[in-house]
């Protein structure tokens, strides 16, 4: 008796065993349908497009023909909504020798000459003169078929194969994924391979440092050289994202508002007044102006407070070692206080139902240095050197798909007359070098 896979395995031992067989089956069936659709479409297109072109370029017999007449090939189709439409292609009546006899036939026009403009099609005939002898190629299987031009229309191939190609790629990768997952244990499915990464790069989690599984790469932290020390650290600042967000919102909203306002204005100038639209524009305009105001305020705040830069002597960091730092802060005004600290933060993401929950917790913090009453002059910047020490038994940086352990240098400032700011500079700490 054939046993179908169970949807949910019952508990065995002390761990629930779930069967993903049916999940894989449904997923695989869907992707198999896509693959079949891609094959069918691709087959139809290849047989209708590629195969004829191939035969013309490889199997047709070359000869010489005389041009006897000019004409237009008309194709008429009837649109459901409107009347009939015609397309035109120029073609030539030629005489040539084939299989020991004289043949007269109309040439097969090239696909690129197809046009809806009759005058354009007639223009296409002007390049040919009656009575001229020109090279041609005829089909040895059917000597009445003759062409005067050969070659490949790569653009046509590309466009024609785009849809079936996408179907095959998407369906094929999904089908391979489903097959690989079919009836596999959790551990077996999690065994990473280059093939797995290719099939589903998003599922393999964040990029990992070479030779250090689970440790994030620090490429992004070492690609910016510092002016005094080896590296300038990138900044992770919530205010930057807020500024970008406000700016995008103001831009998009006011763009839409402008289009609507222009439309309403043109209507009024044309003698038609759409009161509903005008009434809607009022609250839209209020929101648009408020968006601009908020963005400008955020921009002023960001520029008034000034920029903060941190440079470090080495990356990645290791437990038990100390590293030189340079803190630089520009702008103008007075900072009541400025402090720099080293923090270790845990981050956990959980998705359940419609909710995505991201929780962060700082589990360790060590102040590095702090300053008070800094007077910043425009055109200059405050600079200070410091040293950061990573504790001997510090946990290394870690990143997986839903969890992370992250080290950062955090700079907190309290300007006079402006809101406080917090700027975070990520670090990557590797595990201590193992003996042997």
């Amino acid at each position, binding site marked *: 008796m054939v*046993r179908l*896979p*169970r949807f949910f*395995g*019952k508990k*065995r*031992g*002390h*761990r629930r*065993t779930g*069967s993903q067989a049916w999940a894989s089956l449904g997923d695989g069936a869907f992707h198999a349908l896509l693959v079949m659709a891609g094959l069918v479409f691709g087959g139809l297109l290849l047989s209708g497009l590629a195969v004829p072109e191939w035969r013309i370029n490889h199997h047709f017999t070359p000869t010489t023909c005389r041009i006897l007449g000019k004409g237009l090939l008309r194709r008429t189709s009837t649109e459901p909504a409107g009347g009939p439409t015609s397309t035109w292609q120029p073609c030539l009546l030629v005489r040539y020798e084939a299989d020991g006899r004289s043949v007269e036939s109309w040439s097969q026009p090239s696909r690129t000459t197809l046009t809806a403009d009759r005058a354009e099609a007639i223009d296409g005939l002007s390049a040919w003169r009656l009575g001229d002898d020109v090279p041609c190629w005829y089909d040895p299987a059917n000597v009445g078929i003759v062409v005067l031009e050969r070659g490949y229309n790569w653009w046509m191939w590309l466009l024609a194969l785009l849809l079936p190609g996408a179907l095959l790629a998407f369906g094929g990768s999904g089908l391979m994924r489903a097959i690989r997952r079919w009836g596999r*244990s*959790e*551990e*077996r499915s*999690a*065994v*990473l391979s280059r093939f797995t990464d290719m099939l589903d790069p998003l599922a393999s*989690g964040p990029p990992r440092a070479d*030779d*250090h*599984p*689970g*440790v994030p790469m620090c490429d992004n932290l070492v690609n910016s050289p510092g002016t005094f020390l080896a590296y300038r650290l990138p900044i992770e600042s919530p205010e930057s994202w807020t500024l970008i967000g406000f700016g995008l919102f103001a831009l998009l909203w006011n763009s839409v508002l402008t289009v609507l306002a222009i439309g309403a204005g043109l209507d009024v100038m044309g003698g038609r007044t759409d009161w509903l639209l005008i009434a809607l524009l009022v609250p839209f305009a209020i929101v648009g102006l408020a968006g601009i105001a908020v963005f400008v305020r955020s921009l002023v705040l960001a520029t008034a407070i000034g920029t903060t830069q941190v440079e470090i002597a080495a990356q990645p960091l290791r437990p038990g070692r100390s590293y030189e730092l340079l803190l630089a802060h520009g702008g103008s005004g007075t900072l009541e206080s400025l402090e720099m600290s080293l923090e*270790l933060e*845990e*981050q*956990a*993401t*959980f*998705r359940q139902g419609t909710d995505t*929950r991201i*929780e962060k*917790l700082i*589990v*360790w*913090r060590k102040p590095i240095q702090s300053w008070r009453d800094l007077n910043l002059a425009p055109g200059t910047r405050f600079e200070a050197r410091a040293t950061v020490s990573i504790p001997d*038994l*510090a*946990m*290394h940086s*870690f990143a*997986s*798909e*839903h*969890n*992370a*352990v992250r080290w950062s240098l955090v700079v907190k400032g309290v300007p006079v007359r402006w809101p406080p700011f917090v700027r975070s500079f990520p670090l990557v700490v*590797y*595990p201590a070098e*193992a*003996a*042997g």
Partner: protein
Amino acid sequence: MSFVAEAARSTPRVIVQFCRADRRYDPLDTLEVHYQVDGLEDEAVRAVERTVLWYTEGKGEEDLGVHFFERIADRQRLPPEAPTERFTTRLPPSPLSYEGVIVKIRWCVRVRFFFGGGRDFVSEHEFVVGRIPPARIPVAPA
């Protein structure tokens, strides 16, 4: 050698021995595991998978990373013909075991038996890599 016996509410029963009594290892150490299974009765084992992996635990969704994986389907190496087996692997430099507050990283050995009826049974045994102390939550002094 340390014995980690699994109390079975039902069969089978898997006994795992680690080469270190305290089950504590440093990165790049060699992990050697012996396991023994009994209580299978008449149930035929189709395959066994041995895995050394890390997983996360805490308030986030579980992630896992497989360091060592081996699937055995050769009848000569399956119980009852071979009730005892061993495997060895060199541990990687990371990630280290970590007892965080909302994120924890644990290493374990899993031995999973697949039976002829389509069911499977897994036995999991934890060990420690590294010497990272548990994270603390600092609180304000009184």
